[in-house]
């Protein structure tokens, strides 16, 4: 029975036999664990949100593995991509934060953390951390700040950014709703906290509909000068 299924292809006809020669199997140090991260900066707040699904291939390893990590009282980082590298990277960032605090007697600001992360990532230019990072927090003036990175350390400050597996689906929606792109004759209203949180929830619900790697639950971290508040919202589990 096994032989027949291999001999006959999907359309019922016999598959052609190709001798492929010796195949070299390589060990890959990376794997893709999915997940989507999103950050939005407001006038006096910042939101970092991520889904909590951890997948690999066709399986789900966990439904409760959030991708937001608290760094300081004013900064949260979202990391998606290869979970192993996410864990190591956040450990290294925590260690560097402690070292800075001991040397300089103060916490690192969001901008400083972003600059430091860029050099940490570039240090592994030839064996990169397979992580898409987004930092959300408050800058020195108390305004919301979002910094987005590529796997080797290129970064810039944004108002909003989506990263991870569903980023290509979320980013255009954010461009339209927060950046007012491709709209004419619309009043550019600044985003308040309640509207921003609702937008983030709506946007993740849409992402969970169409991206297999996004779903299960949504973890939202809201950063204000009072501190960091966390909220969990259920998403589709299929």
């Amino acid at each position, binding site marked *: 029975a096994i032989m027949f299924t291999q001999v006959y292809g999907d359309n019922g006809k016999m598959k052609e036999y190709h001798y492929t020669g010796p195949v070299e199997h*390589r*060990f*890959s*140090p*990376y*794997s*893709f664990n*999915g997940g989507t991260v999103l950050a939005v900066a407001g006038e006096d707040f910042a939101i970092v949100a991520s889904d909590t699904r951890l997948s*690999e*291939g*066709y399986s789900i390893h966990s439904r409760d593995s959030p991708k937001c990590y608290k760094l300081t009282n004013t900064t949260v980082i979202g990391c998606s991509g290869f979970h192993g590298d996410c864990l190591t990277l956040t450990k*290294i960032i925590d260690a*560097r934060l402690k070292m800075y605090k001991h040397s300089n007697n103060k916490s690192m600001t969001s901008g400083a953390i972003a600059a430091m992360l*860029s*050099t*940490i*990532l*570039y*240090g*592994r*230019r*030839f*064996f*990169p951390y*397979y992580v898409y990072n987004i930092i959300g927090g408050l800058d020195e003036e108390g305004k919301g700040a979002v910094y*987005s990175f*590529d*796997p*080797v*350390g*290129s*970064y*810039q400050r*944004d108002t909003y950014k989506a990263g991870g597996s569903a*980023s*290509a689906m979320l980013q255009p929606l954010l461009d339209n709703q927060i950046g007012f792109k491709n709209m004419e004759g619309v009043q550019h209203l600044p985003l308040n906290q309640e509207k921003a949180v609702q937008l983030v929830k709506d946007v993740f619900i849409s992402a969970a509909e169409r991206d297999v790697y996004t779903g299960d639950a949504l973890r939202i971290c809201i950063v204000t000068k009072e501190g960091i508040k966390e909220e969990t919202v259920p998403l589709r589990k299929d």
Partner: protein
Amino acid sequence: MALANVLQSESVDFSNYGRKCRGFSSSLYETELGLESVGGDNLSFAVRTACSDGDGPERKIQFLHGTTTLAFKFQHGVIVAVDSRATAGAYIASQTVKKVIEINPYLLGTMAGGAADCSFWERLLARQCRVYELRNKERISVAAASKLLANMVYQYKGMGLSMGTMVCGWDKTGPGLYYVDSEGNRVCGDLFAVGSGSMYAYGIVDSGLKQKDLTVEEACDLGCRAIYQATYRDAYSGGQVNLYHVHSEGWNRVSQSDVLMLHQQYQNLTDQ
């Protein structure tokens, strides 16, 4: 090597995967990482092949590439014009990237190729230029700055860095413009355009520069138009046009114009 020296304690060399794990040290770095062919279980440098296996959900790590940047000398200094799009494969990662790096108040560097490579090495160049100033009590020349950059990246030749940059400034010999890239090229010139949209930009600037003695405003318009035309035809360029002018007192940012606005502006001009 420069990278190893700067990041001494923070990075561990995992590329010798199949052999003993070693810490990071300059001498080891030079012998191991250079030209040795990697086989068996060892990780090759082309990280892309390691994860571009056919197995379904594996994805290639994608860095940010694609651009149009240009710079040209004219009688009142140097004009530098760049676009602001960053792409990761076919996805537009950002439309608001700063591709002109302000090394110091009289030196500018442009960014084309790998975004992280350009920003990291030019930031390192800024540090080296500052050290030069402190040691020699005078500003560094454009030729020397570009040579520092070229020598830094030459040590990594063949390892996959992707950087095509123009170092523009004004020193005691007048306006300076050098093209430096990760292949090891370093050339002095009066006009350069770098990136996927460079050919389109060259067309515009070459025809515009035929008229002798441009004023500052005419030169700025020419630079702006060239980038706009490149964004029109090159899929990997777009966003905004950032324009800088370098003169004897240093550089200043002339304008930042959205390509959509420029399109309407030029359209109105042709319609008249």
